[in-house]
């Protein structure tokens, strides 16, 4: 048998090959740097507005984030908005847009989509603001800069979004190998560029993979934007296509993931701008004749929904109570970490919150490291069960997790682990538990308050566990790391 380090070197070399970045790394980095810088500056500018109390800026949230997508989806309509035009007070740190170029000096637009496309003044305003924003973005990139080609300017759409107006403007460099997109927002015919340009890439393949495609006359674009404090999904699709929106699944009482029915996105001339709740990562698919051309989560580029729109995680009091009521000696810190981790998984993957927490058992392995088995109750009554252990002060791990039907928590035998340790937690009715090894031998397990963490036996694999009642009757049998329905994360 060859030594592991020798094989490892081969594996590493084989895996990476001669791979090179798919994007123009330099420009991608500069764009991200610029966005970060602008976010900081605009944040400071908006803070100045608050301090001065002078300008009534409705909390759009859009000016301060990456304009390609909203930073924080807002689920509720702000009270009585008076204006949706982002306004930035002048100041030394405020980004200064380049002078506006009159619309008659920019390319005439045709094929603009959206219900406002027939209003030439709105299209012109979007064109002027978009070009301003794109030039501003480009000017802030350190040399060597791409040279934007004004002839490539395209107003992709102008559409009403609630009480506001949303538009998207794109441009390419002179070589035609680099694209940038600019959100434009405002009210009526008063439009301004918001945030940095986006969609910049030198690789068409990368755009396709990411579900965004601006090249050619049939853009395929799935994104989201905030206008007047509300979040909107944005879909641009080629002619002859349909779009569907699929929300996050729900876990039913039998622990089955139930996907919601996909609902059509009403495309008008290949465009849809619609109110969207980004929680759970709703996905839009664009299809033609049954073939999916592109699929993308509306919040694909977001870190995640804002804390304010998320369900509340289990409280400290709930965790305290679960630790207190748990069998064995659960380590509270570890319980809190595992609960937080698994709560995130539920929140990220489903339309469900967490309605309760139970600690099924807690104890320590031979090295004194804490182990726990916790269960998060979902609204349907089903459970999301996870083991967890901690071998170092700042880390924690899990070997097994998954969904369990509503009425199964107390009569299920849990057995999880691996090469080093095995965690066993017995049904409440169990009098004793045995661990069945690959040799066929069944080893009795000494339980402490219904659970145990034992070292994996040398020379034999643990295969399953059996639980017996006081009469020696088998009441549960479970294969290692089995019995839970796998769950997204």
């Amino acid at each position, binding site marked *: 048998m060859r030594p592991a380090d020798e094989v490892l070197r081969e594996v590493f070399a084989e*895996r*990476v090959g001669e791979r090179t970045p798919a994007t123009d790394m330099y420009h991608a*980095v500069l764009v991200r740097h610029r966005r970060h810088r602008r976010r900081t500056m605009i944040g400071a500018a908006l803070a100045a507005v608050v301090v001065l109390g002078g300008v009534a800026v409705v909390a759009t949230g859009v000016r301060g984030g990456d304009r390609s997508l909203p930073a924080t989806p807002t689920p509720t309509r702000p009270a009585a908005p008076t204006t949706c035009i982002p306004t930035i007070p002048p100041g030394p740190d405020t980004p200064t847009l380049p002078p506006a170029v009159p619309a008659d000096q920019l390319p005439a637009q045709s094929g603009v989509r959206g219900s406002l496309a027939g209003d030439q003044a709105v299209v012109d305003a979007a064109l002027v603001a978009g070009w301003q924003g794109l030039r501003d973005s480009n000017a802030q990139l350190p040399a060597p800069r791409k040279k934007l080609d004004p002839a490539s300017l395209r107003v992709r759409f102008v559409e009403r979004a609630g009480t506001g107006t949303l538009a998207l403007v794109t441009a390419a460099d002179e070589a035609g190998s680099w694209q940038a997109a600019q959100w434009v927002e405002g009210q009526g015919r008063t439009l301004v560029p918001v945030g940095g340009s986006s969609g910049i890439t030198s690789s068409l393949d990368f755009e396709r993979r990411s579900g965004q495609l601006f090249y050619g006359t049939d853009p395929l674009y799935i994104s989201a934007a905030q206008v007047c404090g509300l979040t909107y999904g944005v879909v641009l699709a080629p002619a002859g296509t349909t779009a569907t929106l699929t929300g996050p699944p729900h876990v039913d009482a039998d622990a089955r993931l139930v996907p919601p029915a996909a609902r059509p996105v009403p495309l008008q001339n290949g465009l849809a701008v619609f109110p969207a709740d980004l929680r759970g990562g709703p996905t839009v698919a664009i299809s033609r004749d049954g073939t999916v051309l592109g699929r993308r989560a509306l919040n694909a580029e977001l870190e995640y929904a804002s804390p304010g729109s998320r369900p509340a995680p289990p409280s400290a009091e709930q965790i305290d109570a679960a630790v207190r009521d748990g069998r064995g000696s659960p380590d509270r810190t570890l319980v809190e970490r595992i609960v937080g981790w698994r709560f995130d998984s539920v929140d990220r993957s489903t339309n469900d919150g967490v309605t309760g927490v139970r600690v099924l058992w807690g104890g320590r392995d031979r090295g004194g490291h804490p182990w726990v088995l916790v269960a998060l109750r979902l609204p349907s009554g089903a459970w999301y069960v996870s083991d967890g252990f901690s071998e170092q002060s700042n880390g924690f791990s899990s070997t097994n997790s998954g969904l369990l039907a509503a009425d199964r928590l107390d009569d299920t035998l849990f057995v999880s682990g*691996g*090469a080093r340790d095995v965690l066993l937690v017995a049904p409440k009715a169990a009098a004793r538990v045995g661990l069945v090894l690959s040799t066929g031998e069944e080893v009795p397990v000494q339980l402490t308050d219904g659970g145990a963490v034992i070292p994996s036996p040398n020379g034999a694999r643990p295969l399953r566990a059996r639980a017996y009642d006081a009469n020696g009757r088998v009441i549960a049998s479970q294969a290692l790391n089995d019995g839970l329905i796998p769950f997204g994360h």
Partner: protein
Amino acid sequence: MGDDEGFHEFVSSRSPALLRTAYLLLGDWELAEDLVQTALVKAYQHWGRVIGAGSPEAYVRKIMVNERRSWWRRHRDREVVGAVPERAGPDESAALAERDAVWRAVLELPPRTRAVLVLRFWEDLSEADIAETLGCSIGTVKSTTSRGLRRLQQVLDGNVLASDRREVQE
């Protein structure tokens, strides 16, 4: 040469190598590309100081390795966590299966252990350099390396459970 030109040259010449290291840390090419960009953005913000310190690649690599923890957490749903294949017979397919098993085992290692192995056996860094990169002692590097290799050796020896899988948070 100005800072920007220097940065441009650095990115052009070193990003492929950084990308490969990032891939070995994360196991996903798209995430790896994002990780490299993130690290380069941070480096660019202090490029003058980075250049002044004399080893921009080590600086970027250090950011990458330390960023990967939050990345790993954020994108853990994309982690490859799967069963380790059974051992195969002594032919070419066995060698392929062996390497595949080792790669899967690498992906299942705790992020810190994986980082140590990548830095040691891909980047060929010394234990002292790895300790500096990770901000830990040389002893920790040695023990982590040993633990990681032992785990991989278990896979090679066939003494690992097909169902032995772990998700790790650090």
